[in-house]
């Protein structure tokens, strides 16, 4: 009961950004506190590098700070901030591709999923049906960005399809179809590590 009251007392994200727009810097600190870990997980699952992800989270907050006047209350604040973070992550992926950090991108990374040679694979793990976080992360990164983004937003960030549709700026039907295809691809990739029925 007391916890419920406490929740009710908490200002919404939209209240906080409004207060921040009126010059209350403490409201911005609260926004950072609320979103920093969520965004870090989102970007990390997208890029697979914690240091880069943290840098992009900082960049996201910096943009929120600088463009606070651009936010209008018609949209949810979470949608707005996730859109900024998602765009930054996608830009970073494109930069990586240009720099050709990973020669594997030459295989046609935009449209197709690529196979990475599994160095850590052991038949023992397969038998035991062990599926580690590293394996999952690697297989998520193996998905093409358009499937990766919706899978992270839906299954890791647990956002609604409507929210994802607004963040990614694609129709609801397309989001559902992408999530379905992404899940099908991922289960196929993780098949060797899943317990045998």
């Amino acid at each position, binding site marked *: 009961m007391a916890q419920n009251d406490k929740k009710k007392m908490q200002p919404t994200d939209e209240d906080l950004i409004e207060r921040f727009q009126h010059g209350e810097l403490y409201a911005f600190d609260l926004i950072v506190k609320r979103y920093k*870990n969520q965004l870090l997980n989102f970007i990390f699952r997208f890029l697979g590098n914690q240091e880069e992800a943290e840098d992009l989270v900082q960049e996201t907050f910096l943009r929120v700070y600088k463009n606070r006047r651009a936010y209008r209350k018609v949209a949810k604040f979470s949608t707005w901030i996730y859109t900024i973070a998602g765009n930054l992550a996608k830009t970073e992926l494109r930069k990586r591709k240009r720099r050709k950090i990973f020669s594997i991108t030459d295989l046609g990374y935009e449209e197709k999923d690529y196979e990475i040679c599994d160095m850590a694979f052991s038949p023992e793990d397969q038998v035991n049906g062990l*599926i580690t976080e590293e394996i*999952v992360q690697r297989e998520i990164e193996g998905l093409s960005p358009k499937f990766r983004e919706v*899978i992270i937003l839906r*299954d890791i960030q647990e956002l609604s399809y409507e929210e994802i549709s607004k963040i990614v700026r694609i129709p609801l039907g397309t989001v559902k179809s992408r999530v379905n295809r992404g899940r099908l691809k991922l*289960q196929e990739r993780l098949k060797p590590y899943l317990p045998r*029925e």
Partner: protein
Amino acid sequence: MKGIGTYFLKGLLMKKCERFRQHFSDYIDGLLDSTIRLELENHLENCPRCLKVIQRMKNVSQKLKHLPGLKTSPDFDMVLRTRIRVESGLERKSWSENKFKWSIQIPVYAASIAIIWGAFVFINDQNIKQNQGMPLSFQYHTAGDTILSNTKQDKNVYYELPIYPVDYFLQRPAALPSAKKVNSIESDSLRQKQLSKLPHSKKQIQNNRKPVSFTF
């Protein structure tokens, strides 16, 4: 014959599988319409392959939901504050630099526009004055006359014209449209009288040459 039948049935089942595949995600999320859900469940009873796929999808989704969450480094807030301070400072600096730049640029642009405008007005004025020298627009007066305009007293400037204005119009009747309209005998005779008074030979013109004045 039996082999073909089995192949045909398998093909049908595969088609059915493909049709249901697009609903797997909605089924897992519990968002599937009841009619399609019942159809899919009936299909799953007869298709262990699709059942396995759905079970794996559920497993993967569960695994993703329970992935350990990362936390930002302890100095995250401090670094962010520093970056904001630096970037805000740069923003202010760039604004003040721009302000300084504009404070110089605006008078320069204004002066350039004024010079161009002045030159245009001067050239235009010269052209007008030159045009005023043309016979159609000039006025002539006897020497010593003073023309008074509404605003100021214009100076009389004396020019020796090579030809009298009246001669000019007589030689070029098209230049004086009103001349064409005079048809009556009276007007004709009046004109004849006026013409007879005017000098006709070059010598007469030179003898009758009078100074005329221009107004500017």
